[in-house]
């Protein structure tokens, strides 16, 4: 009958794709939920599968004070949003955008780029995703939302001089992860 039963669980490729870091973030997402105050919000869809994310960015001057989100989707997209939250919360916008560029390049690499652990932290767990073009969008969905919301927040900052939505001190979200130091 089936040949599968004798060989299930042995896929190295699958283990490489779904690293423990990804599964941990998927089961215990960091920073989930929409919070106020925020400066801008972005909604992104993956038209291929219907996954979606609504993500808010709160800035405090040049720093990312909080990233909050409501998302539905696969383990890759959910874990990516959780890692994103950890990676960019508390860092400067410049560093966050550098992270974005580095992560996007990794995702586009089809497995040919060595991930920069120093920079990406848990983000390196997604290196295997880049071998599956159909899943790259899953990993990037939250990052696209972050970039769009941050650009909008910066634009609003310039034009409106931040109309009282978010004063100097942020109401730092409670998460089960330690804030990362700015790099």
């Amino acid at each position, binding site marked *: *009958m089936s040949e599968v039963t004798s060989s299930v669980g042995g*896929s190295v490729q699958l283990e490489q794709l779904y690293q423990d870091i990804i599964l941990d973030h998927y089961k215990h997402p960091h920073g989930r939920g929409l919070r106020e105050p925020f400066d801008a919000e972005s909604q992104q869809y993956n038209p291929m599968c219907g996954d979606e994310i609504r993500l808010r960015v709160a800035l405090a001057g040049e720093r990312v004070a909080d990233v909050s989100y409501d998302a539905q989707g696969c383990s890759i997209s959910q874990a990516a949003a959780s890692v994103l939250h950890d990676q960019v919360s508390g860092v400067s916008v410049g560093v966050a955008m550098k992270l974005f560029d580095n992560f996007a390049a990794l995702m586009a690499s089809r497995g040919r780029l060595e991930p920069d652990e120093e920079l990406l932290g848990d983000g390196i767990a997604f290196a295997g995703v880049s071998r599956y073009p159909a899943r790259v969008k899953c990993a990037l969905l939250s990052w696209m939302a972050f970039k769009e919301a941050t650009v909008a927040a910066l634009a609003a900052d310039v034009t409106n001089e931040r109309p009282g939505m978010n004063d100097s001190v942020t109401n730092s979200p409670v998460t089960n992860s330690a804030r990362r130091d700015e790099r």
Partner: protein
Amino acid sequence: MNPAVIDVASLDPVPLDSAAIRADFPILSRTVRDGRPLVYLDSGATSQRPRQVLDAEREFLEQHNSAVHRGAHQLAEEATDAYESARERVAGFVGVNAGEVVFTKNATEAINLVAYAMSNATTATEPAAHRFAVNPGDEIVITEAEHHANLVPWQQLCTRTGATLRWYGVTDDGRIDLDSLRLSPRTKLVAFTHQSNVTGAISPVPTLVARAREVGALVMLDACQSVPNTPVDFAALGVDFAAFSGHKMLGPSGVGVLYGRRELLEVMPPFLTGGSMIEQVRMERTTFAPPPQRFEAGVPMTSQAVGLGAAVDYLNAVGMDRVTAHERVLTAQTLVGLAAIPGVTVIGPTDTTDRGGTVAFVIDGVHPHDAGQVLDSLGIAVRVGHHCAWPLHRRLGIPATIRATFALYNTGSEVDELLAGVREAQRFFGVGG
């Protein structure tokens, strides 16, 4: 019951010789990922092609290739004959005349052809074309179960014309809810799927046609999922238009079919205009060729049409009643097998009554994309996502599903592998039994 879908039980067809059929499909012998034999359960998205189809395309290109309906040289003659012969065989396959079959790029283009012809009717010079005209206050009716290809073109037609889009709702088991809508005298057209590409539910075509007739509306049938898997007779079904695609019925991509009742095609305005579709061209005005040429502007796809003709020959040689019976067995095996796995829910009818070989399901605690990835690592190709039926998924309260679809080349042991793969997905993500 649907008169055009043959009662398989009464035919008692001789079962297919799966091994012999599989030997005709070269791709089925390849391996994927870690050297796994390919288990292809995605024929509802696109089917694989037998050697007979590939050979027919190659033979045409090596021996007869030329632009059809142009030129007087021998190759032009042979190419035109091959193209028109394919049209005749395709027409016969669905119970209609060759003059009622228009070749299009795909089924999506076939549906758009009718939608654009209808909006072109408002400004058509021939009075007979005005029966297709759609005006503000008119209604176009679809269903919530439609593939985007049979939804967006009608939505856009309404946007262009000021008409109102209305739709039949869907029951919890994914069937068209006949109680959810009453047509009105303003209903110009009712478009619906013959067989859902998600739930596999076969629509009550006679009832829907009868209701459309009561108010004088035209009927368009999306037959993409029915024609490849079951005997279909558009004339017996009494629909005005129907669309299906070549690549889902063992044929090439790049060719689809629009069926239109001859008396309608005779007076319907064209969609695309240009060469081949004309009768006479002057600088001031143009008159159009009779159908089907009126709707085939430009040099058409030729080797693809020839390949589709070969696909029809292949299906006829096997026998569509046997194809249906074979897929019904696989579908029943899948439905029973999935029902036995805790935490798995089939989306759509849970038995084979009025249902085709499309099985969509969800696994508690495992997102469809992740399940699809596990299945892929086992060599099993299924489709995951909303399958271009986003409103249907919204209606059923789920973002996405895993979908297995069957063709004549699938086997019971492949269904076993799918079921084992579903259990493996549960194990990998630490859920279920």
